[in-house]
Each structure stands twice: as structure tokens, then as C-alpha cells.
């Protein structure tokens, strides 16, 4: 049974998504409990899968029994299994959160709304597990199409933001596909493990270099790396409150995961093309992204916009860790990815609660939260500690390992960039807290009442998770070092 787990993990949300329109035809309010139950089961299965992978090694699952170069392969190695636990847990929290905030005027279309969320989760699972380059593209597209629709649900400015995301996202997917076709033309295979055997003899090929660059640009648009990030802030800001946390915490991170799976697992990370080591290129772009993202975040007044730029700068930090080409940097990068996903989810949960309960959109309105909801402010403080990277939180240990990795590689510019972005992050959170605690804040009487239970639950869990990830950083990083490292690192 245990060898079926990777397929079950993918099929569970997919099955629920496609049966939703039929099951909920007459009872549209069933869609919420069904989604929550599905994702709760998925969390359990993903934990079982992680245990199985740790004890018995990686699982390779071939659909419909065709052998590898021909068949479609699912690779559940340590890295994928760890990410899957994160993905399903955050998906569950996101859907629980959705219960109190989903747009009211959806009517019967609420069923399709949950269908799209489940479809998004299953597509992201597909990206994490995909063992061949073409299926990775298919799931990138499924995930992207569900996100466009979910962002557009809010109407108004969200439609414009979603359309812009659609144009850029499609461009990214097309470039990725073009890159895959170049690689296919050179190697004659799409399966990743099969390609590994064929690539070393072909490194001088220009088509290979072209394909790699196209794939990188395509995925860079998907992960919102800095020169290609312009779709992200507006899309996440104007998306419905309930959708931003899932999108912000998962979609860009999974695209990033796809990129370092290609660069480490398919290509050898140490390859040098035309005297340029490709990893250095990645680290350099990460350095730019982290500084520019944090500076832009400092300039924002809209709460969600600020958090979105914060996320862009953290993508850069993860890339710096991944790009060092040593074990410490890689484990630090992956560990920071876990933390960043949790923190982004928490921050957008906060923004959602602040808007739904207190009508807060910009940081100037935050004074209301400070007076009326001390617990909300408390959770924001914990998240801020995590984002800045102060000791008991996971953010600190992630940055610590990334800096250690950069020092090991002798890459002092990266160290400086991480420190600079930490300072800038501190600066924009100081700006935020200055608005919360300023006495002369505008007192608008918003009838808030009690905060609904789903809000408390999701905020509480993410806040606790930031601390727990910090306290257990040792075992988690050890786990990553033991099971999730790419071959030959």
C-alpha cells in the first residue's frame, strides 16, 4: 500500500475537485466541509508518506505501469515529501480561513470556487512530484489557470490584475515549454532521471544553453524573481482576502522548487557554460531580488502590497541559499523556504482578518487594530520577528544557515545582501508598528464583534508554527541534510 501514497496524495484533492460540481449540485453549502475534510486527510497521508520515505528511501511511482523513459513518473524523494507536508498543511489552513471570508455574492458559483482551490492544491502537488519536464509544465499551467480564476473572483481591479498575471504567466509557461522542447530536441527524452545520463556528453550544445535559459526565464516569471515580478504585487493585493494566503505562501515557492529540481537534479549544479558557472548566476540574481524587493516593500503603504514585496525579497534570499552550491546553503535555503511559506501565509491571514474585521487596507488604518485587538497585534509581532529573523523564530535559523553556506563558499556579497535585506525588513516593520502604536490614529468606530473561530485558528497555528520551526530547527535541518540533498552535492 505504501508505494501508492504519492499517487493517492495527488489524486485525493483532484478527485474531490472533480466530484464537487456533481455532489454539491443540490447542496452548495457542503462544498466547504468537503474541502476541509479532503485536505485534512491529505495532511495525514503526506505525513505517512514522509515517514515512509525517511524509513524506506525514495518512492518512484510509474503511472499505468509503463517503464520509465516512456511512462509518466512520480518521484517522491525526501525533498518532495517534506514540501508536500508543508503544502497540504498550508492548503488546509487556507481553506479553513476561506470559510469566514469567501466572497458573499458568489451564490451557486461558490462550488466552483472550492473546486478551483482543490484543483490548485492538486496541481501544486503535481509540480512537486513530477519526474519529467513536460508534466511539470502541465501542472504549472493547471496551477496558473486556477490562480487566474481565483484572483479574478473579487471583480473590479482584481480582474485587471488577474489579466495581467494571465498575460505574463502564459508568457512564462510558453518560454518554459520552448526550453523543454530544445532540451527534448537535444536529448530525445523528457524524463528527468533519463536526461541525467544523456546530458554530460552534450554540454557544448548551443540548443542546451538556449533551452536552459528559456526554462529559467519562464520559471523566473512564475516565481516572481525581481526583473520579472511586476505581476505579483497587484495580483495578490486585489485577490479575495481568502485566496491571497494560499497563493502567496505556495505558488511562487513551488515554482522555485521546480527550478532547483531542474538545476540540481537534471543538470549537475557545478556545470560551467561558456566560463560562467550557472549557480553563480542564480545567486547573483537572488542577491539583486532580495535587496530590491525589500526596498520596494519599504515604499508601500498598502498592507498586502507591502507583504507581497516582502515575499519577493524572500524569494531572493532562498535563491542565495540554493545558489551557494554547498550542503549548508542548500539545506538553509530549503529550510528558509518552509519558514517563508508559513510566514507569508500568516501575514496574509493577518491582512485578511484586519480587513474583514476592522476595515484596514493601508498601514495608516492600523491604529484601530492596535487598540481593539491586542492578540492580533501579538501575532503580528511574532511574524515580524520571523520576517526580520530574530532568534527564537525559524526565520533566524534559515538566514543563519544561508549565511554560513555563503561564508563557506566565500561569497561575501551574498552575505552583505542578506544582512542588508534584513535591515530593510526591520525598517518596514518598524514603520508598520509605528502606525499601530501611534496614539493619534484615526478612531473609526467599526463594529467588530468577536473574531470568528476560523480566523483565530489559522492565525494561531501559523504564529505557533513560526516559533516551533525555530525551536526544532536543528532536527529539521538535520532531516533535510540526511534525506533531501541532491545527488553529488
Amino acid at each position, binding site marked *: 500500500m505504501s508505494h501508492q501514497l504519492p*499517487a493517492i496524495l495527488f*489524486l485525493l484533492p483532484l478527485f474531490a475537485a*472533480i*466530484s464537487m460540481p*456533481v455532489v454539491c449540485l443540490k447542496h452548495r453549502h457542503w462544498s466547504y466541509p468537503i474541502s476541509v475534510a479532503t485536505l485534512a486527510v491529505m495532511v495525514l497521508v503526506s505525513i505517512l508518506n514522509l515517514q515512509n520515505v525517511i524509513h524506506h528511501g525514495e518512492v518512484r511511482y510509474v*503511472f499505468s*505501469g509503463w517503464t520509465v523513459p516512456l511512462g509518466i513518473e512520480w518521484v517522491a524523494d525526501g525533498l518532495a515529501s517534506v514540501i508536500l507536508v508543508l503544502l497540504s498543511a498550508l492548503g488546509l489552513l487556507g481553506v479553513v480561513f476561506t470559510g469566514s471570508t469567501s466572497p458573499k455574492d458568489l451564490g451557486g458559483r461558490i462550488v466552483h470556487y472550492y473546486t478551483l482551490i482543490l484543483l490548485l492544491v492538486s496541481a501544486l502537488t503535481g509540480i512537486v512530484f513530477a519526474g519529467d519536464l513536460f508534466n511539470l509544465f502541465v501542472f504549472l499551467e493547471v496551477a496558473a489557470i486556477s490562480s487566474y480564476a481565483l484572483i479574478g473572483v473579487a471583480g473590479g481591479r482584481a480582474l485587471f490584475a488577474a489579466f495581467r498575471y494571465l498575460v505574463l504567466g502564459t508568457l512564462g509557461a510558453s518560454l518554459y515549454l520552448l526550453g523543454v522542447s530544445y532540451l527534448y530536441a537535444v536529448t530525445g527524452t523528457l524524463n528527468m532521471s533519463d536526461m541525467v545520463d544523456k546530458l554530460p556528453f552534450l554540454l557544448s550544445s548551443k540548443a542546451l544553453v538556449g533551452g536552459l535559459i528559456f526554462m529559467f526565464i519562464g520559471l523566473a516569471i512564475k516565481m516572481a524573481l525581481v526583473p520579472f515580478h511586476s505581476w505579483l504585487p497587484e495580483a495578490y493585493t486585489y485577490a479575495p482576502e481568502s485566496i491571497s494566503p494560499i497563493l502567496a505562501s505556495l505558488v511562487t515557492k513551488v515554482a522555485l522548487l521546480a527550478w532547483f529540481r531542474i538545476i540540481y537534479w537534471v543538470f549537475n549544479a557545478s556545470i560551467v557554460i561558456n566560463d560562467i558557472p550557472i549557480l553563480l548566476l542564480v545567486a547573483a540574481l537572488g542577491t539583486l531580488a532580495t535587496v530590491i524587493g525589500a526596498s520596494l516593500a519599504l515604499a508601500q503603504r498598502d498592507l498586502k502590497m507591502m507583504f507581497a514585496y516582502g515575499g519577493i525579497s524572500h524569494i531572493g534570499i532562498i535563491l542565495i541559499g540554493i545558489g551557494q552550491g554547498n550542503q549548508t546553503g542548500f539545506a538553509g535555503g530549503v529550510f528558509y523556504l518552509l519558514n517563508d511559506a508559513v510566514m507569508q501565509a500568516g501575514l496574509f491571514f493577518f491582512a485578511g482578518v484586519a480587513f474583514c474585521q476592522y476595515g484596514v487596507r493601508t498601514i495608516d488604518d492600523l491604529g484601530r487594530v492596535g487598540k481593539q485587538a491586542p492578540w492580533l497585534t501579538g501575532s503580528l509581532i511574532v511574524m515580524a520577528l520571523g520576517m526580520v529573523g530574530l532568534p527564537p523564530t525559524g526565520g533566524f535559523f534559515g538566514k543563519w544557515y544561508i549565511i554560513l553556506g555563503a561564508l563557506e563558499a566565500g561569497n561575501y556579497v551574498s552575505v552583505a545582501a542578506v544582512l542588508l535585506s534584513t535591515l530593510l525588513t526591520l525598517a518596514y516593520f518598524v514603520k508598520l508598528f509605528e502606525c499601530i502604536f501611534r496614539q493619534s490614529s484615526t478612531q473609526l468606530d467599526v463594529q467588530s464583534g468577536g473574531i470568528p473561530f476560523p480566523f483565530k485558528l489559522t492565525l494561531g497555528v501559523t504564529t505557533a508554527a513560526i516559533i516551533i520551526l525555530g525551536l526544532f530547527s536543528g532536527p529539521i535541518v538535520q532531516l533535510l541534510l540526511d534525506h533531501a540533498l541532491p545527488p553529488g552535492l
Partner: protein
Amino acid sequence: MIRPHDSIIVQTLGRFVIPVVQIFGLYVLFFGQYGPGGGFVGGVILGAGMILSVLIFGHDASRSQYARNVLHGDGVGMLIYAGVGGLCMIGGGEFLNYANLDIPGLETASRRSLGIVLTQIGVAVDVAVTAVSIVFSLSAEEIMEDSING
């Protein structure tokens, strides 16, 4: 909203052509086992037949009843597909490994043949529903305006 076509020639021809189109669609769907054809093409032809009936007899006509009902089957095709795959998993094989379909009295080759027919039916249903729903959403002007203004 699509109104009935007012030409008597089109209406009369439609009555004869549409059933032929549907039967041809089913033929292509099942012939996919032995030659060119299969679920996608069969589904397109089935969908085209329903679209034709909507275009000729109008959205509200009793002859378009079938096409209107089909819209409720959003996920049914995928469900058939995934259901067959799930049965294979229950039978102990990989997802969509038809050799593991647990049907007594059938050899492996017949199981594979049956499995692929079932999944192709699922694909055909899904393609047909998608084709019809595209036509309906393009023709429903008032719903579109509501969603933009709201």
C-alpha cells in the same frame, strides 16, 4: 441568448443531420480501439452535434433540452476517468494500469481493452461538456454583464 434559426431548410435538415452526427461521434469514439479516432475526437463530434441543435432550434427549445442538461455534468467525465484509475489501484496495480481491473472472467488483454474504452468514454463526455459550456457562456450576455457590474 440564442434564438431559433428561421429558415425551414436549416430546420428540416437539422432534424436529419443531428442524429447522424451523434451516431458518427459514438462510432469514432469506439473505433478508437482499432484505428484513428478515440475519446477526444469523439467528444468533439458529440459536442458539435449538441451545439448544432442549440444553434438551429434555439436555446429554449425542447430539442436543446439534452444540451442544457449536459451542462450539469461538469466533472462527470473526469470522474469516470479517475474512477477507472482508482479501480485499478484498488485491484493492486498502479493508477490506470488496466491489467489490474478486477473483473472476473476476463483475460489481461480484454481488461486492458475494456479499461481504455471506459477512460475514453470519460474523456469524450468531458470534451463534449466543455464544448457545449463554452458556447453557452459566450451566448449568455446578461449573466456576463451582471458579473462585471457586481
